[in-house]
């Protein structure tokens, strides 16, 4: 067994751990925005680590797997941002105990109250 197989498998396991943590995050977190914090971005790192591990496992495909990782790295924050913006625009409330909502303050004409939670 080659050493790069073992290293690749370990890296993959680490990535899978982050994938798992991201999925755990969207179950545990109280509101949409926090779910996105934990969910879609821990999985991005998990994705990159997993793909790096698999590339190490099979080095002759490293470039192509790298292209996949690059696509994920560019596209995923775009979709997260679009979803967060849309959800805020559609009035999905922040959780109880949120500290501030500067966006809602700037949007409402009086500039006073935060949105109801």
């Amino acid at each position, binding site marked *: 067994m080659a050493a790069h197989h073992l290293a690749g498998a370990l890296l993959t396991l680490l990535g899978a751990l982050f994938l798992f943590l991201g999925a755990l995050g969207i179950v545990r977190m109280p509101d949409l925005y926090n779910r996105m914090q934990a969910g879609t971005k821990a999985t991005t790192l998990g994705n990159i680590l997993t793909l790096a591990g698999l590339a190490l496992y099979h080095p002759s495909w490293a470039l192509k797997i790298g292209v996949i990782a690059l*696509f994920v790295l560019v596209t995923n924050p775009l979709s997260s941002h679009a979803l967060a913006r849309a959800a805020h625009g559609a009035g999905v409330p922040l959780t109880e105990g949120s500290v501030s909502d500067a966006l809602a303050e700037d949007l409402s004409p009086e500039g006073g109250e935060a949105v109801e939670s």
Partner: protein
Amino acid sequence: MKQVLAILALLVLAFLFAGLVPMASKPGNGAVGDYYATHGIADNRGSNLVTSIVVNYRGLDTLGEVTVLFLSVMGVGFILRRREGTPKYSPVPASPILNTGANLLFGSILLLGAYIFVHGHLTPGGGFQGGSVIASGVLLLILARRDRELSHDLLAWLESLSGFGYALVGLVGLVVAGSFLANKGVLPLGTWNRLFSAGVIPIIYILIGLKVGAELSTLLDIMIREPAPEGGGH
């Protein structure tokens, strides 16, 4: 009453299906599949046997299927015909970040689509997949940018030209090699597993890719321009 009948029918179907599962999972290929798998390379020299079947052995069916797709897009255009006023996209602008990202990614999506249908005879993929990928790229532009109008004339031209080219390749086969959409004897078959090989298969698949991409883009554009009902409560 009807519901009870429906549930009864579903139960009978479930019973039948349960008997069908062991029957359907017999190992092995059919006789036709075995023939195509054995002689596909000798006949067409395209590595991807699925592509050989779609474009060559069953090329006429594929022509029919492309026609069905064209007809359904035409049907959508006919049903959702705008009656009055200028067509406008939805007034809600997308985030500027998404806008920039769409510009950044559009070229890569187009390139991926082109890669897929150019390599249809070597790797998985082909005209249908590449066309859908290109339509997805157009969808990204439609979603992210409101200022860029899709040129319907260009799409229509592309669509009809590639359809015409498909039929023309078939006719050339009829004249040169004696049967519609023939592959052997029209172009040199080339060497196995290189890009310029498999005769007319890559040409036809590129044409199908352009046609499907143009059709699906037109479909999306027509559907997304249909105005949402005024004050629909949501």
